[in-house]
C-alpha cells in the first residue's frame, strides 16, 4: 500500500514535470548503447558495426521512451495539463476578454458568497440552544393590534398550571443595570428572570450556579448571573468573581454564576414582534411587584418563553393556551377576544429578516446568472470564429470529448480565477457589513466565511464554469466539421442556429434585468414614501438622549422628579436650544405601555379603549413640533391637578360625536379621573403603521425611571457636546449613551429596508450594465460577421435606412421579448415580497413603465452603434475583405 502510494505520488510529480526530464532519459539510453558497443569494440568489432548491433539489441528507442513516459506520469493528467496550457494561451492571447470575464465573475461570485454568508448565519445555522425546536416565545393576541403583544404575568402563570403540553414557562422582564466599574458609569441591558429560565433554554453556567427558587422572594434577590462576555470585558475573566459582591444600581449584588457567551435571549423592546439583537449581559431574579399577579388583561409587559414536553406539538400547546386565554376577558369584564401565539425561537430572532434576505439572495443569484449568460454569449461568439480550427482538429482525429473538454476548461479556468477573487472580495464586503453600526440585522455578528460558505462558493464556481462553458462547448462539438470548414470562411453569414441561440440568451438577460429593476424600483419608492410619510412630528434639528435613573438616590420618585426638573430647566436655558422635553418612549420605536382609558361611569367592555401611554414634560410637544389641535399642552401650573392630553384618534375613541371635548373628564391608567386639557396631532409609533391612539400624562403624575430627552436646537454643530456637558454637571454618575439626532433614530428604524434597497438597486444596476454590454456585444458581433452580406445588400441597392432598420429589428427583438417576460416575472416576485413594500402596489404601473422605458432606451442605444456601423459600411471594401 505504502509502495503504491509512493508510486502514485511520484507519478504525479512526474506529470508536473518536476522529475526525470526527457533529456535525462535520452542521455541514459545513449550511455547504455555506448556501453554495449564498447563491449563489442573490445572484442574487435569495428565501432560503426558495434554501434549498429547495440542499437538492434536495445530495441526501439522511441517506443521505449514512449512507454517510459506513460509510466512516468499519468497520461490523462498530462493531456489535462495540456488543455490547461492551451486555455491559458488562449486567455493570454485575449487579455481584455479574460479580464472582463474574470472581473465580472469575481464580482458575481463575491456578491453571492457575501449574501450567502449572511443567509447562512442568520437563517440556516441553528441557534446554539439544545432542543431549540421545542422552545417557543409566547405572545398574546388582541384583535386591536396588528401584531402580537408581550404577555401578562398572571396569564402566563395560568398557562403553566393548566396546559399539559408545556414543560416549563418562564417570564423575562427587560431591565437595565447601571454598572460602575471605574470610568464612565455604564447602563447595561439585562433581564429579571425566574430560576427555571436557564434550564428551560438548556444553558448551564460555566462557573458557579444559576438562581434558586427562594431567590425570587423580595429581599433574597440580591444575586446576579453575568454573561461570559461581560465577565471577560469588565472583570478580566476573574474566576474568583463568583461569590464576590458587585455594585449594580448602587446596590450590592452577589455574583453567583457566569453563563456562556453564546447564550442570548430575544430581547423584544416593544409591542411589535421585533426581537432586537441585543444580548442580555446581566440577570437577576424576577420578583413581581405588588398586585401584579392578580391583575388580568393590561400589564402586557413581559416576554415569555415556553418549552414543550417531548412529543408535544406546537398546535396542541397553542390550543391548550387558547382555552385558558378565553377565560380572562370575561373575568375582567371585557368582551374582546384574547388569544395567544407561539413563535419558534429561531423565527423570533431571525424571522423578520427572512423575506428580505431570500429576496436579496435571489437577486444576487440572478445577477450571477446574467453574468454567466453574458460570458456564455461572448464565448459563443469566440467559438464561432474558432469553428474552423475545431473542424480541422476533428478532421485530424481529435475526439468530441476532448474538444468539449477544451472549451469547458477555458471557462472553468476563468470561473476559478473569478471564484478565488470573489471569495477575497466577499471577505472584504463582510468586514464592512459586520462593522456597520447602522444596520440592525439579527445575528449579524455571527456572519463569517465558514466552511459551509466556502463549500457554497466552490460549488457556485464550478456551476458557473459549466454554465458559461457548456453551451459553447456543445455548439462547437455538435457541428458538422465539413460544413464548418465551408462556412467558416468569412464570406458566409452564420447559420440560423447560432444567431437564435444568442438572441435567446439576450432575451433571458433582459428579462432578468427587467425583473430586478422593477423590484428595485418598488423598494426604492417604498422607502422614499416611508420616510416622507406624515410622522406627526418634525425630526429635523432634534437631539435625543436616553436618560436612565438607577441607584438608591433615584429609587424615590421625588428625587427622580427633581433631577428631571433640573435637567429640563438647565437645557431649556442653554443658548441655541429652542425647547426641550422628555417622553417615556420615542416615536418610531413601536407601541408600548398599553393600558385602557374609559369614560366615567362606563361599564361596557367595548367602552374601554386600549391606548399607548406616554409620560411627557410640558416642552415635549414644542420640541417635536407636534401641533396642538385643541386646548393646550401641559403647563407648570398643572402640577397640582390631574390632567391629560389625548391624541386626535384617542379623543375620537372616547367621544366620537363631540367636536371639542377639551375640559371633559375620563378615567386614566390608574383608574382615577383626569381632565382633558388638550388634543395633540396623531404621531406614528412605527413609520409603516397608522398612528395608534395615544394618551399623554405629565411626567410628574408618575415619574418614570427612564425617559428620552428631546431637544430642539438652532442648527448648531456643538449642541451635542454642550448637552452632554450640561447633563454631566447635573449628575456625574448618570450613564449617558451617545447623543443622537432624531433623524438618526428614524434612519435606524428603516436601516434594514435601506440595506435591502441599496443592495437590490446595486444588483439591478449591475444587471442592467451587463445586459447592455451583452446586447451591444451580440449585435456588434453579428454586424462584423455579416459584413459581407451587408456589402452584397448594398451592392444590390439597399438603402442605409433599410440596413439600419434591419440591424435594429434583429437587435431589439430579443430585448422586447425579454422585457415582456421580465415584467410578467416581476409581477409574481413583487407579490412574494409584498411584505417589504410600503404604500405601493406590486404591479405599480409607473415603476413598470419607467423600467420598460429605461430598458428600451438603453437597448436602442446599444444596438444603434453597431447598426450605424452597418449602415455606413463601404460596400466595396466589405466585399473585398477576403
Amino acid at each position, binding site marked *: 500500500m505504502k*509502495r503504491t502510494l509512493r508510486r502514485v505520488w511520484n507519478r504525479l510529480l512526474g506529470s508536473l514535470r518536476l522529475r*526525470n526530464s526527457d533529456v535525462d532519459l535520452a542521455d*541514459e539510453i545513449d*550511455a*547504455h548503447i555506448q*556501453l554495449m558497443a*564498447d563491449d563489442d569494440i573490445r572484442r574487435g568489432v569495428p565501432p560503426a558495426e558495434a554501434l549498429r548491433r547495440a542499437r538492434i539489441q536495445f*530495441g*526501439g528507442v522511441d517506443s*521505449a521512451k514512449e512507454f517510459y513516459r506513460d509510466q512516468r506520469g499519468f497520461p490523462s493528467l498530462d493531456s489535462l495539463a495540456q488543455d490547461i496550457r492551451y486555455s491559458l494561451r488562449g486567455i493570454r492571447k485575449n487579455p481584455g476578454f479574460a479580464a472582463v470575464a474574470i472581473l465580472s465573475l469575481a464580482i458575481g461570485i463575491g456578491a453571492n458568497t457575501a449574501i450567502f454568508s449572511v443567509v447562512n448565519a442568520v437563517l440556516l445555522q441553528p441557534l446554539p440552544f439544545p432542543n431549540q425546536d421545542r422552545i417557543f416565545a409566547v405572545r398574546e393576541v388582541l384583535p386591536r393590534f396588528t401584531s402580537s403583544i408581550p404577555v401578562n404575568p398572571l396569564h402566563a402563570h395560568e398557562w403553566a398550571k393548566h396546559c399539559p403540553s408545556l414543560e416549563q414557562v418562564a417570564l423575562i422582564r427587560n431591565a437595565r443595570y447601571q454598572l460602575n466599574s471605574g470610568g464612565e458609569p455604564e447602563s447595561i441591558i439585562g433581564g429579571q428572570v425566574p430560576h427555571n429560565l436557564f434550564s428551560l433554554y438548556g444553558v448551564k453556567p460555566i462557573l458557579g450556579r444559576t438562581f434558586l427558587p427562594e431567590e425570587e422572594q423580595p429581599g433574597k434577590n440580591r444575586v446576579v448571573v453575568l454573561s461570559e462576555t461581560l465577565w471577560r470585558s469588565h472583570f478580566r475573566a476573574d474566576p474568583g468573581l463568583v461569590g464576590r459582591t458587585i455594585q449594580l444600581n448602587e446596590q450590592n449584588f452577589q455574583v453567583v454564576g457566569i453563563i456562556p457567551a453564546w447564550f442570548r435571549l430575544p430581547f423584544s423592546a416593544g409591542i411589535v414582534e421585533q426581537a432586537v439583537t441585543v444580548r442580555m449581559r446581566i440577570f437577576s431574579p424576577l420578583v413581581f411587584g405588588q398586585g401584579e399577579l392578580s391583575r388580568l388583561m393590561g400589564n402586557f409587559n413581559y416576554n415569555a418563553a415556553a418549552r414543550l414536553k417531548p412529543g408535544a406539538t406546537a398546535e396542541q400547546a397553542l390550543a391548550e393556551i387558547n382555552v385558558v386565554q378565553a377565560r380572562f376577558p370575561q373575568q375582567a369584564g371585557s368582551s374582546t377576544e384574547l388569544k395567544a401565539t407561539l413563535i419558534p425561537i429561531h423565527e423570533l430572532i431571525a424571522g423578520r429578516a427572512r423575506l428580505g434576505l431570500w429576496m436579496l439572495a435571489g437577486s444576487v443569484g440572478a445577477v450571477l446568472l446574467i453574468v454567466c449568460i453574458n460570458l456564455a454569449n461572448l464565448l459563443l461568439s469566440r467559438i464561432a470564429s474558432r469553428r474552423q480550427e475545431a473542424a480541422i482538429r476533428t478532421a485530424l482525429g481529435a475526439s468530441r470529448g476532448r474538444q468539449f473538454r477544451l472549451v469547458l476548461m477555458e471557462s472553468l479556468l476563468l470561473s476559478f480565477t473569478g471564484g478565488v477573487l470573489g471569495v477575497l472580495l466577499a471577505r472584504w464586503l463582510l468586514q464592512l457589513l459586520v462593522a456597520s453600526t447602522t444596520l440592525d440585522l439579527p445575528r449579524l455578528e455571527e456572519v463569517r466565511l465558514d466552511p459551509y460558505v466556502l463549500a457554497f462558493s466552490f460549488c457556485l464556481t464550478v456551476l458557473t464554469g459549466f454554465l458559461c462553458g457548456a453551451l459553447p462547448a456543445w455548439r462547437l462539438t455538435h457541428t458538422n466539421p465539413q460544413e464548418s470548414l465551408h462556412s467558416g470562411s468569412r464570406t458566409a453569414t452564420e447559420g440560423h442556429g447560432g444567431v437564435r441561440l444568442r438572441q435567446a440568451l439576450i432575451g433571458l438577460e433582459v428579462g432578468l434585468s427587467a425583473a430586478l429593476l422593477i423590484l428595485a424600483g418598488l423598494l426604492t419608492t417604498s422607502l422614499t414614501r416611508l420616510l416622507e410619510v406624515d410622522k406627526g412630528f418634525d425630526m429635523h434639528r432634534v437631539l435625543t438622549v436616553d436618560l436612565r435613573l438607577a441607584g438608591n438616590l433615584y429609587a424615590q420618585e421625588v428625587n427622580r422628579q427633581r433631577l428631571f426638573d433640573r435637567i429640563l430647566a438647565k437645557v431649556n436655558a442653554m443658548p441655541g436650544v429652542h425647547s426641550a422635553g422628555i417622553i417615556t418612549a420615542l416615536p418610531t420605536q413601536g407601541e408600548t405601555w398599553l393600558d385602557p382609558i374609559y369614560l366615567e361611569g362606563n361599564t361596557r367592555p367595548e367602552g374601554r379603549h386600549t391606548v399607548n401611554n406616554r409620560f411627557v414634560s410640558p416642552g415635549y410637544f414644542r420640541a417635536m413640533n407636534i401641533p396642538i389641535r385643541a386646548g393646550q399642552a401641559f403647563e407648570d401650573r398643572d402640577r397640582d391637578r390631574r390632567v391629560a392630553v389625548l391624541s386626535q384618534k384617542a379623543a375620537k375613541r372616547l367621544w366620537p360625536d363631540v367636536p371639542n371635548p377639551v375640559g371633559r373628564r375620563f378615567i386614566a391608567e390608574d383608574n382615577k379621573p383626569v381632565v382633558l386639557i388638550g388634543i395633540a396631532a396623531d404621531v406614528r409609533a412605527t413609520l409603516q403603521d397608522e398612528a395608534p391612539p395615544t394618551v399623554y400624562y405629565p411626567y410628574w403624575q408618575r415619574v418614570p425611571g427612564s425617559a428620552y430627552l428631546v431637544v430642539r436646537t438652532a442648527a448648531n454643530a456643538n449642541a451635542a457636546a454642550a448637552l452632554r456637558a450640561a447633563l454631566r454637571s447635573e449628575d456625574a454618575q448618570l450613564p449617558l449613551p451617545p447623543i443622537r439626532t432624531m433623524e438618526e433614530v428614524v434612519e435606524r428604524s428603516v436601516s434594514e429596508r435601506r440595506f435591502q434597497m441599496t443592495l437590490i438597486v446595486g444588483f439591478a444596476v449591475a444587471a442592467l450594465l451587463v445586459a447592455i454590454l451583452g446586447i451591444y456585444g451580440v449585435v456588434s458581433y453579428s454586424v462584423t460577421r455579416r459584413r459581407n452580406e451587408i456589402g452584397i445588400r448594398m451592392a444590390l441597392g439597399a438603402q442605409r435606412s433599410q440596413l439600419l432598420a434591419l440591424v435594429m429589428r434583429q437587435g431589439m427583438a430579443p430585448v422586447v421579448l425579454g422585457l415582456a417576460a421580465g415584467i410578467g416575472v416581476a409581477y409574481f416576485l413583487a407579490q412574494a415580497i409584498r411584505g417589504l413594500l410600503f404604500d405601493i402596489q406590486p404591479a405599480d404601473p409607473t415603476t413598470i413603465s419607467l423600467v420598460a422605458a429605461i430598458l428600451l432606451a438603453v437597448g436602442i442605444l446599444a444596438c444603434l452603434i453597431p447598426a450605424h456601423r452597418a449602415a455606413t459600411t463601404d460596400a466595396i471594401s466589405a466585399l473585398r475583405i477576403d
Partner: protein
Amino acid sequence: MLIWETNMSSTAEVWQGTLALMVLKTLNAMGPQHGYGIARRIEQTSENLLSINHGTLYPVLLKLEQEGSIASQWGVSENNRRAKFYRITKSGEKHLASELKQWSQATEIVARFVALKGSKA
C-alpha cells in the same frame, strides 16, 4: 527464446513483475549497476537463455524507482563513460525478500503439480 512484451496486457504484467524481481536481485547481489550492467548480468545469470530487449528495462527501473525500491545517481562507468547507476534501497531489500519468498512458494506449488503422477502418465 523469450521476447519481452511491452504492452500492458496481463501476461506482460507477470513478466514485468518477474523482471523487476530479477533487477532487484541483481542489484542486491552485485551492488550499484548501470542499466546496461543490469541487462548484461540478467542475460549472464540466465546463461543467455533470456535475451531481453534492453529498452524494456527502463520502464521497470522507473517503476521501481517510483516505488522507492531503488535509487539512482549519475556516475562514471569502469570504462569512463557517464552513466546512471542504480542501487537497491532498504525498502527495496525488504520488498525483494518478501517477493522471493512468494516466488519460491509459487514455484514449489507448481513443481508439485509438475511432479504429479497420473494413472495415464
